[in-house]
């Protein structure tokens, strides 16, 4: 889920039933299989929490997207099986709502507000800058999996228009130059990361 403003942390944690943190244990590097399994376990909790009531498919999918970062086919099939819904129906819902993504997202999520207030205050120029810098369209991820660009509708802070949300952090009165800097910063950070390895 896109988390825009930074409240909600506490309660969101309150909502999640008993997390998997293994406190005090030496940190072990989980291999891919293990994390994958953990994720399905976590998803299971939500399914059993929500599937009791009718019509809760959307919230289950949202939770799945929170867990996996996107909705891989495996997760969709799993939810379908567990809730007794045809896979086609699950996929139909996934493709209908713009919040759901079936592709993994980049490390840096750039959500540009394309609400009316932001648009008339120059959001299109920002979008052009993003496209130009990253050579991708809205809704796409760069080949190096570093950046994903998405558009959102009014995030409710029109006084700060135009707005760019970078990994959940709101940047108000955004300017093209600033966007270029943010992108460069991430690229640099990534460079030094990969040099370390």
């Amino acid at each position, binding site marked *: 889920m896109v988390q825009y403003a930074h409240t909600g942390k506490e309660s969101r944690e309150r909502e999640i039933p008993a997390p998997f943190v293994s406190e005090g244990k030496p940190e072990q590097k989980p291999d891919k299989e293990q994390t994958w399994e953990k994720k399905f376990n976590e998803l299971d909790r939500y399914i059993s929490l929500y599937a009791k009531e009718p019509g809760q498919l959307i919230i289950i999918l949202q939770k799945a997207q929170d867990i996996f970062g996107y909705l891989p086919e495996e997760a969709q099939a799993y939810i379908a099986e567990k809730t007794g819904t045809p896979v086609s129906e699950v996929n139909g819902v996934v493709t209908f709502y713009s919040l759901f993504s079936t592709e993994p997202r980049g490390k840096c999520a750039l959500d540009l507000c394309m609400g*009316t207030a932001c648009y008339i205050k120059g959001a299109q120029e920002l979008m052009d800058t993003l496209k130009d810098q990253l050579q991708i369209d809205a809704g796409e991820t760069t080949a190096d999996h570093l950046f994903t660009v998405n558009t959102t509708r009014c995030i409710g802070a029109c006084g700060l228009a135009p707005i760019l949300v970078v990994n959940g952090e709101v940047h108000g009165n955004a300017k093209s130059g600033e966007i270029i800097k943010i992108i460069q910063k991430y690229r640099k950070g990534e460079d030094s990361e990969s040099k370390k390895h």
Partner: protein
Amino acid sequence: MKVKNTEDLREIKDKFFPLIKQRLGHRNGLGITQVLVCSGTACSSAESQDFRLELERELERRNLRDNVRIFKTGCFGFCQHGPIAMVHPGEVFYCQVKPDDVKELVETHFLSGRVVERLLYQNNGQRANNIEDIHFFQAQKRIVLRNCGVINPEDISEYIARDGYFALADIILNKKPSEIIDKIKKSGLRGRGGAGFPTGRKWEMTAAQDVKPKYVLCNADEGDPGAFMDRSILEGDPHSILEAMAVSGYCIGAAQGYIYIRAEYPIAVERLEIAIDQARGYGLLGKNLFGTSFDFDIGLRFGAGAFVCGEETALLQSVMGQRGEPRPRPPYPAQEGLWGKPTLISNVETYANIPVILREGWEWYSGHGTASSKGSKVFSLAGKINTTGLIEVPMGTTLRTIVFDIGGGIPGGKKFKAVQTGGPSGGCIPDKYLDLPIDYESLKEIGSMMGSGGMIVMDEENCMVDIARFYVEFTQDESCGRCTPCRVGTKRLLEVLKRITEGKGEMEDLELLEELAFDIRDASLCGLGQTAPNPVISTMRYFREEYIAHIRDKTCPAGVCKALLDYTVDEAKCAACGLCAKVCAAGAITGARGQPYRIDPEKCLKCAACVAKCPKNAITKGIRKEDVNIAETGIHTGTGGQEERAAL
């Protein structure tokens, strides 16, 4: 503790009322100072929570926690100058507070008892000590928003201290459903979700259905892409919605309610979750309310970003976890809604009016507004306006009052061009209607609509053709694809509009646009398609000359449509510093030290990066060079390019 009757409520009220009383301006010798920090979406985006936490830490450090108490509160409406912190007693209204201001605030205000002047709002150079001194608030009438900025939305006791849940108690214990429905009908309240259907009639229709179970549904989808009213109400006063839904449940005979809200509104969702938990804890939701046999509970259902889901029949599908596709009406949701059962659907703001009507009486309520539209309306005012914010005015207020008195006019001395109301279903209103008192009927008459309350102000630098394209692109994108007129029609409409903004339009396109617009309006299945052409129809009606300028003269008078304008360096101003060439990603700028720089229009991507960089403000965007507009004669020469010339 479970609340059983009005006495129990009164006990809670008595305990918490002193706090509220001080916030309402009474200096009642409470002996404490209260700080209310706005915790709505806008202020939180501007880091009001960092301020609040820093303030808490500082008070802790200085051992002042017992004397100064901090509360979260809902939107004050003054979003442009957020984050806001209000201090009582004294109603001192601090704007744009930052964590760095905390130390000074504590030392000067809380320890020395002096106001921190520099953090006050400035009205034309004058410091506004008090919220009443600020122009923005003077023409407003806060009925729906009465609790926003006054109570802590995360504490049910404060809502009760503002007489919350008393109406519910009285109704369940003493009144018949028909009496209440009658009151709502007499109040004249109409749906705030857009169409303005009389709410009392809707209740009556749903109550008359002889089917069980029934459902109450709150439409908190707020799909208008420039509006934040409903979200702000939920963030600032969630219990008013819960109380109203319980009342309507009692009146129509439903035991279950749902609030359909976008998952993208994390703060509103969180507040609702807390509010529902607390109401259940007090026995104000759940089984056997007030010891009677009436049960009522509320659940949240989440939307996942689809505009069409705001439409009531699509909403029903989405609440049931399906694709949100609309269906023809009748049957109306009041007859066949959730799981085929009668369902009352109303908008957030509609519900927010209910407790006030019941508390103050329908006579009082219908005393506000115009002949056909009663009460007030909340608008989110944004765009090219000095004070963006959340406002509430009586129905019948003029746009001039809203834009110029409350909103403080257009920034930068620019000229007002239009106000857009009703979002993608509405229209653009030109300056000649600035003095029209607005209500449901008057807006409809001039080709717009009330909508849910988004109000976007535009100035001379906004291109009306481009705005029409923006909205059609939105509806095209959001069209669920179920019916052809909407799916294909909006696509064609968008193609024509794009053609025009790219300078490739022809005069016949105007007729084509009109024809398409009316066909889509008349033949679409649901409200989305039926209203999608409105932005086009209204801009063509009031700003036809702008369309013609794009088509015939290949110019965009507002200087927005990129294909129709060029960036140029003003050689007289250019200091030849070369910063522009450095920042240009396209390598379109050339020059050398000591010589003015030049932009190659062929290479230029029109990103405007150079404009921002230029220390001399020497780079301007303007209409095409060869498009010389000889003002005196009205003759336009030159066109957009070879092909276009041929087309003319």
